[in-house]
């Protein structure tokens, strides 16, 4: 199946439509809530939570014996939240640092989850096949009810986001100020964390424990490069996330043996790479261009300044001088000379240059003007 075929089939084929819709919605909600995780410098919290959710899935299965997605996700949610609050407990109450706490909870919960999974496997009544799909995710197992759940959660998240927009925003950028204003910071904090955990748990089925953190981070990190405004960033991140989902599904569906999760993550990584390089404000490419332009301007001004220094000792400012006396040190190259002539600040004739009236004035006011030019 080629990609064009895929986009034709998407309107008619039930499975494809469901999966595409699911990954798109997932990408959107992850991008939306991931923005908060990135800005709160909790990027790796997602990684820890997604791993911490594993024992919850296993325990939910052990208790109910059902493979109903919602039950399992509820278990994941509980153990994800448990992990999150334990991380906080470690950071707040002991001298262990954030990274250690995250790594600890991540690996310990995951190990415990693996113990439970292998334990379940050995049970006689185990129809557990399918539990391990939460490890790497299988977008193909998405059914309409899963997608409906995702849409509902996204809707609720969006509603809460709009309802508490001002609180979320102020807590994000100035926690102390929020406290002095009398907001219940603990409540807002728990609320936003709860939704981040919820988004992660929703994604487990599709992209799996290991790659979930990238779903959360990548769209937000990409969106961050294009804007300095929170609302725009969240909007962009949701769009990037949704597109990563759709493109990832399309690519993986058009080839054999390509699991969806990793492809989605790679597509998101491409979004990030492109944003890093090409974003106009912060991107590496434009930063480099600006850098070089500034340097050229500076060299130009240096040459002009030097010319001014010579010219002002003469009565006639346009008295010609030899080009020979300029050197590299004064920022002089053939190009700068041409540029100066283009701007009509000097006149070149043969191997001589002379300052024009305009150039003289320009050089005289160079340092007065430079502040107003910026």
């Amino acid at each position: 199946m080629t990609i064009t075929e895929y986009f034709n089939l998407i309107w008619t084929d039930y499975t494809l439509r469901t999966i595409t819709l699911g990954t798109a919605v997932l990408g959107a909600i992850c991008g939306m809530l991931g923005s908060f995780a990135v800005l709160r410098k909790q990027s790796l919290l997602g990684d820890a939570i997604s791993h911490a959710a594993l024992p919850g899935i296993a325990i939910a299965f052990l208790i109910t014996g059902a493979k109903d997605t919602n039950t399992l996700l509820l278990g994941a949610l509980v153990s994800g939240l448990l992990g999150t609050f334990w991380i906080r407990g470690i950071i707040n109450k002991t001298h262990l640092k954030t990274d250690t706490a995250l790594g600890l909870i991540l690996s310990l919960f995951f190990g415990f989850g693996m113990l439970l999974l292998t334990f379940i496997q050995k049970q006689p009544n185990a129809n557990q096949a399918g539990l391990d799909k939460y490890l790497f995710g299988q977008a193909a197992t998405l059914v309409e009810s899963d997608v409906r759940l995702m849409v509902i959660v996204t809707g609720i998240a969006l509603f809460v986001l709009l309802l508490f927009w001002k609180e979320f925003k102020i807590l994000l950028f100035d926690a102390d100020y929020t406290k002095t204003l009398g907001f219940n910071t603990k409540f807002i904090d728990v609320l936003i964390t709860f939704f981040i955990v919820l988004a992660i748990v929703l994604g487990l089925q599709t992209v799996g424990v290991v790659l979930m953190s990238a779903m959360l981070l990548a769209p937000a990190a990409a969106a961050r490069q294009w804007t300095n405004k929170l609302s725009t960033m969240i909007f962009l991140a949701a769009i990037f996330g949704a597109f990563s989902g759709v493109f990832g599904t399309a690519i993986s569906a058009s080839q054999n043996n390509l699991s969806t999760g990793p492809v989605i993550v790679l597509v998101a990584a491409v979004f990030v790479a492109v944003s890093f390089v090409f974003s106009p404000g912060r991107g590496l490419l434009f930063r480099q261009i600006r850098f070089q332009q500034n340097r050229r301007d500076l060299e130009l001004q240096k040459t002009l300044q030097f010319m001014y220094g010579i010219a002002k000792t003469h009565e006639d400012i346009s008295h010609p001088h030899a080009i020979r006396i300029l050197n590299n040190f004064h920022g002089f190259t053939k190009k700068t000379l041409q540029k100066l002539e283009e701007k009509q600040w000097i006149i070149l004739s043969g191997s001589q240059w002379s300052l024009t009236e305009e150039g003289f004035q320009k050089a005289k006011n160079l340092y007065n003007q430079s502040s107003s030019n910026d």
Partner: protein
Amino acid sequence: MTSPQIEIQLIAAIVAIACAIPGVFLVLRKMALISDAISHSILPGIVLGFFITHDLNSPLLILLAALSGVITVILVEAIQKTGLVKEDTAIGLVFPALFSIGVILIAKNANDVHLDVDAVLLGELAFAPFDRLLLGGIDMGPKSLWIMGIILVAIIALLLLFYKELKVSTFDIGLSSALGISPVIMHYGLMSVSSVTIVGAFDAVGAILVVALMIAPAATAYLLTSDLKKMLLLSVFIGVFSAIAGYWMANLLDASISGSMTTMLGIVFLGVYLFAPRKGLIAVLYRQKQQRTEVSLLTFLLHLNNHSEAEERHINHLQEHINWQRVRSRTVLNLALKNNMIEIQDDLVSLTDKGKEFTDLAIEYIITNKDEKIEPMKDDFFLFRG
């Protein structure tokens, strides 16, 4: 015990020691999560190495995989240096991408390759004794035992050789540069050693549980001591203990060995986290409560010192005046009485000489901004603590 059982425990113990030593430095340098990143992003290296060698235990594969671990570190630092995102975001972006490449490489070649992601991520110690090293037809024991053994010897040798340098560059980067010990070399040295260890161990315990073996013993030991040498020894001990105990737990439950080793580590950490003598949760909560009472005591004494009028010092008025709950005021009052700081006559509270002396000294320290001297002062007065 059968001989494979002994071999498995031996491998587990060696892996635990080999992981614990670099783990201590990672935890102290606040780079614990780098181990998580490396453990995931070695996957493409392993897959490529496997295409070439077709042997999960070949040294070339280990080198290639370790190289991809070091590349991860370099990539993370390069992204971080652009200033576009924070360090943790950089880590979170790099390793899932590399891991995805690895997964896709495996999936695309699933038919030719005898390697699956579960095996790499989760490992299976139980199979380790079956892959034996044959030298000229003689059975020399399990291959992974040899590999991890060599890595462990190298780690210990490096640790002994560079102990001083590691210590200085971990705790004081400025001093270490001034002494001519390059922090960059130390950093990349540690990263390389960690990569090699993780790669060597992933086969036995899996990529994610390697992280547990690196971080958990070190973190647990850090709660128990502040001495680097003791911390190293303790984390080695905790690692080995959890490895052996985990093995027997797995035997009992008939479940994954690496999973139960991690669970064991988790149980040990939980115990220490709760009950560690000075840095554990209970100790910290108790100390915080104690300090809260003592601050209240000081406030109370200052209040008494400020007021000579009777109504301000009446025992029933104190509650409403300083705005304390009943229990709180009784605790503070009792503590003050027990310390002979106050005396009560006709329901009027007044400072004793000792109380007066204590309060004056405290005021002296507070107004000269030497708050930190109040803590030792409590010992000087042989205070009964709150």
